[in-house]
């Protein structure tokens, strides 16, 4: 998607890239989705495993095969290979894209995403981040973006997971008249957060 399409750098462009990169996940079987989700949750809490998995998958996509690996990274990898160790490209490409998005996030965000995977509370956060990205266009300019109260939940404040997820992207948030001070420097991490939430949500839908 990244190399073959003309990409517009706005929210619609991001949505198109995410959609193109995750389309194949629709064909994922339920059992496999459940395994992937469980193992990705473990990888999110293990930074070296996340890095090792991304590197091995990159290598695997280059040569078409992936050698076995120990630990949670190895468990994810087993979901993506055939018995002869050939990588299933249709699955490996979206998971590689997801790992790329995850590595652009902080360790604290990984922990929160792992918790949200456990409680299956990703969809609200996805809507919230999507709404923010849509309203903050043009991304190159500072702006103040109000957040829809319906998407914030009852515990909107410094301790709320959605608050921390956005704050870790480099955004300044306000509790009263909930809004975000959009900073162009936060664009990369916020887009990566959106893509991570979108792909993980899609995996949850399939499971």
């Amino acid at each position: 998607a990244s190399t073959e399409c003309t990409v517009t750098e706005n929210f619609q462009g991001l949505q198109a890239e995410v959609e193109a990169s995750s389309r194949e996940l629709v064909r994922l079987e339920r059992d496999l989705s459940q395994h992937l989700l469980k193992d990705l949750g473990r990888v999110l809490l293990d930074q070296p495993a996340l890095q090792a998995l991304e590197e091995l998958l990159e290598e695997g996509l280059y040569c078409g095969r992936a050698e076995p690996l120990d630990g949670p990274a190895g468990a994810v990898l087993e979901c993506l290979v055939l018995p002869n160790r050939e990588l299933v490209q249709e699955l490996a490409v979206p998971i590689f894209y997801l790992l790329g998005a995850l590595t652009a996030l902080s360790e604290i965000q990984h922990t929160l995403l792992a918790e949200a995977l456990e409680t299956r509370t990703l969809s609200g956060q996805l809507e919230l981040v999507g709404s923010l990205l849509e309203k903050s266009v043009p991304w190159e300019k500072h702006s103040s973006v109000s957040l829809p109260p319906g998407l914030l939940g009852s515990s909107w404040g410094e301790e709320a997971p959605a608050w921390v997820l956005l704050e870790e992207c480099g955004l300044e948030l306000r509790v009263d008249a909930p809004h975000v001070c959009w900073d162009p420097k936060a664009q990369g991490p916020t887009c990566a957060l959106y893509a991570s939430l979108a792909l993980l949500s899609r995996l949850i839908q399939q499971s």
Partner: protein
Amino acid sequence: SAFVGVVRSVLRELDHKGELIPVDSLRNSTSFRPYCLLGRRPSSSWFWRPPYKCVNLSIKDILEPDAPEPGLQCSGPFQFCDAVDGLMQGSVGLATPGEGKISGGAAVSGSSSASMNMCTLHVDPNTWEAMHRERRLRQPEHKILQQLRSRGDNIYVVTEVLQTQKEMEVTRTHKQEGSGQFVLPGAMCVQGEGQGHRSQKKTITIPSGSILAFRVAQLVIDSDWDIIFFPEKKQRTFQPPTTGHSPIRGTRSWLQQSLGLSSILESIYNHLRFLTDG
């Protein structure tokens, strides 16, 4: 985190243009010294970039003749004092259709404080000129460099850092208080009330010499080397190879899908791959 909060707060004051890259954790705060080389994979997206990673090499490790890194220029010191205090209050009342009643109030307060001495250390642009003129790429190429080349990663060199000069303590507190009452009507009247509070205090110590933010320039490595201070988005450290697996794999996939002659094409593909490898 408290560390990230401090770094952002400092950069808001000292770096309006956003030219410095914040260090994302205290654990990494000594990895980004001037002259250190950093690697970064090409991104799989148009919308974000992977983080810079320390590759445990300095520019002196890839150049000859072998010589220590030249000295740095220091600007500062800058003194930074940040104290934030805030209080928010709110209340809610709700009368239910059956004449039940729920009411409550809450207050959240937060504060953070930090005081620090910092300086910037940067490599004089003339130093880069002299290095480029006098020193050549070491042969054979360093093994780490070979690996980065084969992965297609870009390489950057740290040209400037923002560094603490004294050990400093950062404290962040967060307090929540709340109370509420409820009355539920019915055959048996149920009512109750409660209150509570929660207090959280985080203190971290940032050692002297910790790096809070850094600036990089991109290395370009061909038959010679060069430094690009303002790289374009598509600028690569290593020129992509003219032959490789990828175009063949793309052709293979397209042919298989279009014609369904997988077994015949498999052998043609293997033959082509052999030739390309050769």
